[in-house]
């Protein structure tokens, strides 16, 4: 019976293979060309083959070489941090810097293991004031502050 001895490499290898397949699928319409006159598809396709090969080797080796066990992922905190970034990405144009920034700080504060709400509120307000003064007034980045009318 084959057993996975290094789960990290096993998972890593599978992810590499998946990446290679996606890249291969995305680049399948690009002309490959020849070595003398390489087409746009040459480099990506060679690389996806190399990545796929490395992935296969990693997976194969993981059955034989002992390695560390997988670690727990803190999906909840990761999700919150990502949500904070996504809120900024989608909010900055329609809402402006102040509401978007508040949203980001709120989402991020929930992710902290030891959040204290009153402190976060005061700190968030100061942070936003500082950000507006620094980036918009001092450096002059063209950011809109409030929702467009």
């Amino acid at each position: 019976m084959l057993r996975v001895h290094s789960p990290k490499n096993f998972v890593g290898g599978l992810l590499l293979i998946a990446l290679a397949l996606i890249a291969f699928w995305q680049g399948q319409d690009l002309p490959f060309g020849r070595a003398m006159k390489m087409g746009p598809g040459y480099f990506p396709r060679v690389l996806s083959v190399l990545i796929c090969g490395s992935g296969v080797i990693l997976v194969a080796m993981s059955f034989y070489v002992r390695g560390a066990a997988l670690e727990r992922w803190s999906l909840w905190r990761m999700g919150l941090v990502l949500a904070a970034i996504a809120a900024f990405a989608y909010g900055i144009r329609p809402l402006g810097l102040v509401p978007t920034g508040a949203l980001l700080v709120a989402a991020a504060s929930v992710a902290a293991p030891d959040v204290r709400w009153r402190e976060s509120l005061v700190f968030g307000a100061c942070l936003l004031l500082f950000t507006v003064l620094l980036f918009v007034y001092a450096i002059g980045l063209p950011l809109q502050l409030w929702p467009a009318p």
Partner: protein
Amino acid sequence: MYDVLGNLLMGFGVALSWTNLALCLVGALVGTLIGVLPGIGPIATIAMLLPLTFKLDATGALIMLAGIYYGAQYGGSTTAILVNMPGEVTSVVTTLDGHQMAKQGHAGKALGLAALGSFFAGCVATLVIAILGPVLTGIAQKFGPPEYCALMVLGLVAATVLASGSVFKAITMIFVGLLLGTVGADIETGAPRLTFGIPELAEGINFTSLAIGLFGIAEIIRNLERPEAREVVHARITGLLPNWADIKSCFPAVLRGTGLGAVLGILPGNGAVLAPYASYTLEKKLAKDPSRFGRGAMEGVAGPESANNAGAQTSFIPLLTLGIPPNAVMALMVGAMTIQGIIPGPEVMTKNPQLFWGMIASMLVGNLMLVVINMPLIGLWVRLLKVPYRMLFPAILLFCCIGVYSVSSSYVDVLLVAVFGVVGYALIKLEFEAAPLLLAFVLGPLLEEKLRQSFLISRGDPMIFVQRPISLGLLIVSALLLCLILLPSVRHTREEAFHG
């Protein structure tokens, strides 16, 4: 020699203008400020602070960025000494004896030695850049596409050898980085490649998104899952200036560290990473009583810190003369230069001497400023170290988002930060190194271009790479490096260096 002096004088003319002095000061200050924060290395610091430079002219922007860079380096060693938390690989060594010194009540002396050693190393390294820069630029101008390819291969191979962890995994990261570099319009035909039909990706993956995601966001998520444990040294920090006896006993270590660092920093691949380890090992070997090391030996702080700074400084050489960044931080500098419309390479010095020499002179100025500012400001940095992470990271996150968004006002760039944040987190969890990926991403487009040109010259004959002596030599060195790492004894030493 006369030329060097004349050029340096011209550089000082540029660097000592009031605006540039102010930019250098602000860069060094802000760099230290962010670099001091635990868990943020120079890569994340520079990536985060990039937008500060957008409105400046090219010379000013580079002077400020260089200031941010050594500020971040310096801040990293402060954290290493006071909190025992290295911001990056190169300050791991400093924690060994530096934190011990701090625990014994000599925090001030450790910080002072680190600062003065770094200052000395920085000055020497700057002179090395000034002398070697023109020579290497001359050589670089003789380079054709095959030589560039070979050099980049050498750089990438060296980056895998010097990455901590598995070499094989580092090589896969190089492949992934190269693949990500191909995203966007093809250089010759303009055909969109691997863009998933997203128009914003036509110009390629935004470099700042990649760097901030991989190094900033991933780091934040990882820090959040661990309970905070910082042992900040609480005693008042006094006696920053080392006395004459300390200086006398440390100066040889500083001198050796500077030499080691300067040489290792020039090497392609991340040579500078090795410098502090090499210096520490050397000092331990040379010491009359090696058992002092690890228990607060002054040479164990002064030597590696000098080596670190010298290496950090001379790693500018491959970037400025050949246009090839030797490590991830320099890859960020390429990104910053490209945003300013400067293509790094031999032309920078010939076509833009004001910028080249101004930047070099500003390194000297910046190093001096760091010593002068940081000695009195130590108290402030210590207080900053006590700010809890739950307050720090929302601020970092906000600055990262604003920074990335301001590059080209594109919300897709910000979303990419989240995507690469997940990627970076996965890489940490699965024990892959992100630094080779970033380096390969930056070198990728150039490598592809030069490869295509080479094959066009040789009509598809790969022999072109071995028929030219320089390119053959570089490829042989790369092959030797790869073989070397497979030897069991070398592999063992390497593992010891990174985990010992």
